[in-house]
Each structure stands twice: as structure tokens, then as C-alpha cells.
């Protein structure tokens, strides 16, 4: 094992010893479920190790807290999407045949699209969805939202650009 790796290993060990309990308690407070808190605390350290930036960590609490917060938000996002997906499915007038394999793929894709659209305004998100999923033309959207077709196009291009920036090659 190269010296740098050994040093990194030691840093992780000491970070873990010093901060794991605190981190677990922090997560527990936000989740009120100890098994999930333990899982997420574990994932946080895993992220830290794979990030290969262990040596540069200056403020471990803030750094770990940031990773953990990201994981927590991700968890909420997934949960919210799954619930919303089930509700949308239930609201359909005709049942939709979806295999469990398809279901998984749909959920993962929804999650990905949802992340891409993050940070865009409500209106931009809506316009993107209206063009892509509801099959509405710019003219129809402009009438519904009472804005010009040019503005509709602008919002659409903005949403699309953000997706293209975030999608992997």
C-alpha cells in the first residue's frame, strides 16, 4: 500500500472515530429512525472515502454534514417521487399495465429528470412538462398561461439547456 494511501486510511479512521456517533445522532434527529440513520451515516463515510479528498478536509463536521445533508435530500426526493408516482397512477381513469422492471426504470428516469429540473422556476418546469409530456403546442401553452409564444419557447429552451448541461455523455 503506498504511503499516501496509508495516511488517507488513518485519516478516515480518525474521522470515523471522532465523528461517526455525532453524525448518526444528527441524522437520527432528522429521520427518527435509527436503522436509516445508521445506513446514511455509513453512506456518508463511503462518499468521503470514494471522493478521495480525505486529506484536504479542513472542517470535518461541516464537510460530513454537507455530504449527509445531500444524502438526506436525495432520500426525501426519492420518497416524494415514489409517492407522487403511485398517486398519479391511481388517478388514471384506465389502469396502466406496468411490469416491475418498467416501474423501476420509470422511477429512476423520473428521479433523473426531477434532479435536472431542480432549481428552475415553477413556470419553467411546468412549460417543459407541458411540451414534453402533455403534448401541448407553444400556442396552446401560451393561451393557458396567458403569455406570448416567444416566452414559452424561451422557458422551454432554458429548461432544455439545463437538462443538456446535466445529462451524462
Amino acid at each position, binding site marked *: 500500500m503506498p504511503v499516501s494511501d496509508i495516511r488517507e486510511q488513518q485519516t478516515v479512521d480518525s474521522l470515523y472515530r471522532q465523528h461517526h456517533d455525532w453524525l448518526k445522532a444528527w441524522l437520527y434527529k*432528522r429521520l*427518527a429512525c435509527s436503522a436509516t440513520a445508521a445506513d446514511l451515516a455509513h453512506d456518508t463515510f463511503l462518499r468521503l472515502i470514494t471522493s478521495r479528498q480525505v486529506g484536504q478536509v479542513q472542517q470535518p463536521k461541516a464537510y460530513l454534514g454537507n455530504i449527509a445533508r445531500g444524502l438526506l435530500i436525495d432520500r426525501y426526493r426519492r420518497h416524494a417521487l415514489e409517492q407522487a408516482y403511485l398517486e398519479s397512477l391511481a388517478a388514471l381513469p384506465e389502469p396502466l399495465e406496468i411490469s416491475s422492471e418498467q416501474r423501476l426504470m420509470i422511477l429512476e428516469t423520473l428521479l433523473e429528470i426531477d434532479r435536472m429540473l431542480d432549481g428552475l422556476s415553477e413556470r419553467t418546469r411546468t412549460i417543459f412538462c407541458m411540451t414534453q409530456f402533455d403534448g401541448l403546442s407553444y400556442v396552446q401553452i401560451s393561451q393557458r398561461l396567458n403569455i406570448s409564444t416567444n416566452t414559452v419557447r424561451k422557458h422551454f429552451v432554458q429548461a*432544455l439547456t439545463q437538462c443538456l448541461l446535466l445529462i451524462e455523455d
Partner: protein
Amino acid sequence: MQPPRPLEHDILEAAARWYADLHISPDCPDTRKAHQQWLASDPRHRQAWARVEKLQHKLGILPTPIAHPSLRGAQLRRREMLKLCSLLLVGTGGAMSAWHLPWYDWTADQRTATGERRRIRLADGGHLELNTNTALDIRYSEQWREIRLYSGEIWIETAPDSLARPFIVNTAQGRVQALGTRFLVRTEADKTSVGVLQHRVAIQPTALPEANVQLEAGQYLEFSARHIGPIQLLDRNADAWTRDMLIINDWRLGDFIAELSRYRSGHLSCDPSVAELRISGAFHLKNTDLVLENLSGTLPVRPLYFTRYWTRLVAR
């Protein structure tokens, strides 16, 4: 997500504009030709366009009728959860008590199923009425007459006790002690609500051992383990469920449907577009199907039955 890409923002935006134009006029030969020229003029343009195609493919995976509602619903939920999150921070905080463990519901002495109501005569001559989905233990000892309410709602009429033992109802959030009396207790995930029909009760949340709020006849309040809400007037029809009725005055339709769903197996929800409508009336809890059907007589709504267990109220 990956860190920033080598592809510049401007090129991706140009690709987005091409997509936007082709999207409205896919068959226009001039647009197509100009697009082809743009692609051929720079390998980075082709690289950007490959991303467009990838995105298109992803979007194509999603069934169109549920994609938009799912994404919108998820965002609404996230907002709700942020609120819940901050509540959790100031709320429970402490260790998870045995009260929260789900198996307590299953081993309880007495329980009612969804839509079921049951009356029990207590050993001392008092009465207990269990509303839908209620689970409790009855523990009479030398010192106490105790009801442990794990979930649901009860109506209680206490009887004088020859041993003068206090009568108490414990929930996950705290203790309600009868001071000679008739009252209602309902427990939910994070709160207990109490309504007094006769005489008084004393309330003591778990985490506030010093607190001792007394509630009089005709009053109502909600409390959590750490917080006692304001004293309010008790709705005079709050105990209508003991007669299998729900009597309400000027409620949000969304709240009404949430209340009705307690009495109904499966999933019952209300489309946000009609949730703000107002509703008043007396409804029979024994036939919620009929209640839902009849709603369309007074409100611009109709029930949508997805399966036997999934019902949603939508705009007519």
C-alpha cells in the same frame, strides 16, 4: 450528477434552440436543412446533439399520462416534507419510545378494523366506545385504571370507582386524566386531541411533566409530547361517530375526504384542484361509497374508481 462538462453552455443552448424549433415544425424542410448544416459544421455540435437524443430517449421511457403529475406531485410533497422536517427538528428529537413501534398495534387487547365501531363495558361499570381503526390495552391495577391508546379514537364514560383509583388514558404523546366524566381522545402519528363532553380532564404531555392543563366541558385541544395547543371550542358534533355519523359545517373538501378515508379500506384521496371546495352536512359512515356518489349532487366533483381500493375525487 457529474461535475461540469467540457461542452460549453453556448453550444448546448444552441442545441436546445434547435430542438425547440424542430419540436414545433418537425417537417419544415428549411429548418431541417439548416439543422443538418449546423450539425456538420462542428464535431462539438454533434456531441451536443447526441445529448439531445439521449434526453429524448429518457423522456420517451416515461408514460406520458403520469410523467407530469408525478413530477409536479413530487415537488409539492417535497415542500410539505421540508415543513415536516423542520417540525421533526423541534418536535420529537429524543429517543424513539415503544409507543411508536408498529407491533404494539397488533398485540393490543382491543382493536377495531377500518369502518368498525365497538362499545365495551369496563369492569367498573364505565363505557368505552372504539372508533374505526383503534387499538388499545385496558390495564386496571391497584393504583390505576389505565387505557393505553395506541391508535385511533375513543369515547369514554367513566364510572365512580369503589377504590377511588384515578382513570387515565395514555397515548404516545402524554396522559389524559379523567376528573369525573365523559370525553373523547384521538391519537395520530404526532398528536393527541382531547374533547370534553362533561366535567373536566387534566392533560400532561410526556415531555412536560410540570404541565397540568385542565380542559372543561365543551372544550377541545391538541397536544404533542412537547407542546400543548390552544384551548378551542369543541365541535358539538365531535361525538357523532358514536352514532355512525359525520356531521360537519363548512369544511375544506380535502379535510372531509381525509376524515372519510379513516372509515374506508384502501386509498381515498382528493385531487388538489377540488380540495379547497367547502362542504357541510351529515354523512353516514357505514356507506362511504354512497357518500362519495352523492357528493356529485351538491359539488362539481365525481369519484374515480381506479381499483376497488383506490378512489380519487376529481373535478366533474
